C-alpha cells in the first residue's frame, strides 16, 4: 500500500495476502459443483489477491469473474497454480502486459499435469500407504493408528501447499518450464514404486479369504482347501481376485457394483459353507 507513494503506482501482494490465500485454499472444494467443479472455490482463494491488486471498479469485477470459470485439479496441488496466478495478476495490475487469455490458458495448462501428478502421488500412494499403516495398528485397538495417519498425512499436505504456493508466486510462469523437467517424473515414479510394493504386501497380508472345505483326512488330521492353497503360496486367491477386479475396473465396471457383488459372494459362501 505504501508503494503507491513512490510514483510508480506499483502494487504487490503482501506476506499476509499469501497467508490468507494459503488458509483459504484449505476450503477450495467447499462449493464443488457439477457445472464448473472448483470454480467458485478458486475465486474464493483469489479474493485476497484481487482485493489487494485492483481498486473497486470494472477491473476488480472482471478479475472476480475470470476466476469463476471452470477449474478442476488435485486440491493439494492447486498451490503452485494459485502462486503463478497471483504473480500474473500482479503483473497485469501493474503493467497491463498480461491479458486475460494468458491467465486462463496458464490455469488450464497446469490443471491437467498437476492432477496427473497429484492423483497417483497423494490419492494413489501417500494416503493409502499411511492409511493402511494406521489401520493395521488401529485394528489392534491402539490410538497410535489413527494418530499416525492423521498427523503424517496432514504434515505432507500442509508442507506441500505452503511451499508450492510461495514457489509458484516467486517463480511465476517459469514454473511451467520447471514442470517439464525430470524432477516431477522422478517423484511420481518413486512414489509409484513404494505404492505398488506396499499394495503387493497388503494383498497378501491383509486380505482374509478362507475356504474351510475339508479336502483330505489323513490319520484324523483334516486338511482344508485353504491349508493346501497356503502351503503352495499364501494369499494366492487374494492376488488372483485383485488382478481380476483390476481388470474389471479397467473395463469400466462400477466399483460399487463390484463391492456389492463381493458382499453377495460372502453371504452365499457363508450360507453354502464354502467361505468362512
Amino acid at each position, binding site marked *: 500500500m505504501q508503494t503507491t507513494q513512490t510514483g510508480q503506482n506499483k502494487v504487490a501482494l503482501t506476506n499476509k495476502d499469501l497467508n490468507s490465500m494459503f488458509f483459504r485454499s484449505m476450503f477450495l472444494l467447499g462449493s464443488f459443483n*457439477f457445472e464448473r467443479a472448483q*470454480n467458485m472455490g478458486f475465486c474464493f482463494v483469489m479474493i485476497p489477491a484481487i482485493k489487494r491488486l485492483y481498486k473497486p471498479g470494472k477491473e476488480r*469485477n472482471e478479475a*472476480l469473474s475470470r476466476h469463476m470459470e471452470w477449474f478442476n485439479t488435485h486440491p493439494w496441488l492447486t498451490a503452485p497454480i494459485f502462486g503463478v496466478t497471483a504473480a500474473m495478476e500482479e503483473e497485469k495490475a501493474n503493467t497491463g502486459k498480461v491479458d486475460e487469455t494468458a491467465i486462463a490458458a496458464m490455469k488450464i495448462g497446469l490443471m491437467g499435469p498437476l492432477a496427473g501428478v497429484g*492423483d497417483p502421488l497423494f*490419492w*494413489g500412494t501417500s494416503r493409502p500407504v499411511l492409511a493402511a499403516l494406521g489401520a493395521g495398528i488401529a485394528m489392534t485397538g491402539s490410538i497410535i493408528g489413527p494418530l499416525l495417519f492423521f498427523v503424517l498425512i496432514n504434515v505432507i499436505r500442509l508442507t506441500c501447499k505452503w511451499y508450492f504456493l510461495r514457489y509458484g508466486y516467486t517463480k511465476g510462469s517459469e514454473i511451467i518450464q520447471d514442470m517439464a523437467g525430470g524432477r516431477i517424473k522422478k517423484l511420481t515414479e518413486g512414489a509409484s*514404486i513404494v505404492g505398488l510394493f506396499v499394495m503387493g504386501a497388503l494383498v497378501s497380508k491383509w486380505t482374509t479369504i478362507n475356504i474351510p472345505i475339508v479336502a483330505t483326512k489323513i490319520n484324523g488330521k483334516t486338511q482344508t482347501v485353504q491349508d493346501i492353497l497356503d502351503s503352495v503360496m499364501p494369499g494366492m486367491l487374494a492376488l488372483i481376485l485383485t488382478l481380476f477386479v483390476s481388470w474389471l475396473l479397467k473395463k469400466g465396471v462400477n466399483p460399487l457394483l463390484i463391492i456389492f457383488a463381493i458382499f453377495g459372494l*460372502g453371504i452365499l459362501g457363508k450360507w453354502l459353507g464354502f467361505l468362512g
Partner: protein
Amino acid sequence: MNIIQIILVLLVAGIAGMGSVLDEAQTHRPLVACTLIGLILGDVKTGIILGGTLEMMALGWMNVGLAMAPDTALASVISTLLVINTHTSIGEGIAIAVPLAAAGQALTIFVRTIVVFFVHKGDDFAQKGRYRAIEWMHVIALGLQALRVMIPTGIVLALSTSAVEGVLKSIPTVITGGLQIGGGIIVVVGYAMVINMMDVPELKPFFYLGFLFAAFTKFNLVGFGGLGLILALLYLQLEYSGKNNRAQTATASAGSAQQGNSSSAADDDLDDDLDD
C-alpha cells in the same frame, strides 16, 4: 447419551461432511471419524477398531476428476454410533456401513448439483464486485455439505436405541456373517483401484515383489514401507544413471522413446479413471 454428547456427535458429523467434500484434513476417513465418535461415546477402542476395519475397505475410495467415491463420512459416523450404542459386532458395523456409503454418495451428488444455483448467484455478485457475497455463497455451499451428514445422523440419534437394536438384531446371522467375510475380501477393490492408478508396465514387478515378500516373510507394514522406499531410491539411481550411459553410447533415442511410452501409458490410465 447426554446432551453434550449429542451436540459433539453432530459436530463431528458436520466436520466429517465438510471433510468429505474438501478432501483436505481427511476428517472424513473412517480412521479419523470413527475414532472421534468412539471418543465422544466413551468407547474409543471400538471406534478405533471399526475405523481401522472400514479404512482398509475404503483404501482406494478417492475422488478423481468429477467421479465421486462412496462416502466414508456418513458411513463412518452412523455405523460407529450404532455399533457402540447398541453393543453390536464390528461385522454388523460393516453391514450397515456399506449401504450408508452408497447413500452418502447419492446425497453428496445431490448437494453438488444444488450448488450450481449458488455458483450462478456468485457470477452475478462477481460482475458487481461484491466479493463478500461470493464468499458467502461458497461458505453456504460448504455448510450444505456439513448438513448432508448432520441431518441423517440427527435422525438416527432421534430414533430410540431399542428400535435400532431391534432392526439390527433381526438381521439373520448368515447375512452378518457373510458380510463380515465379504468385508475381509472387499479390500481387494481398494488395492485394485490403487494399482490401476499407477499402472506403468515397467513398475508392475514391484507389486509382485511386494506380494512375494509378504507371503513368505514376517515383515510388518513399517518394514514394507521402508523396504519400498529403499527399492524406489535404488531404482531411480540405476534408471537415471543408466540413461546417461546410454546417451553416451548414442542410443539415447531408444531410451527417451521408452520414457515417452511410459508416461503416455500413465496418462492413458488416468484418463480411464477420469472416464469412470
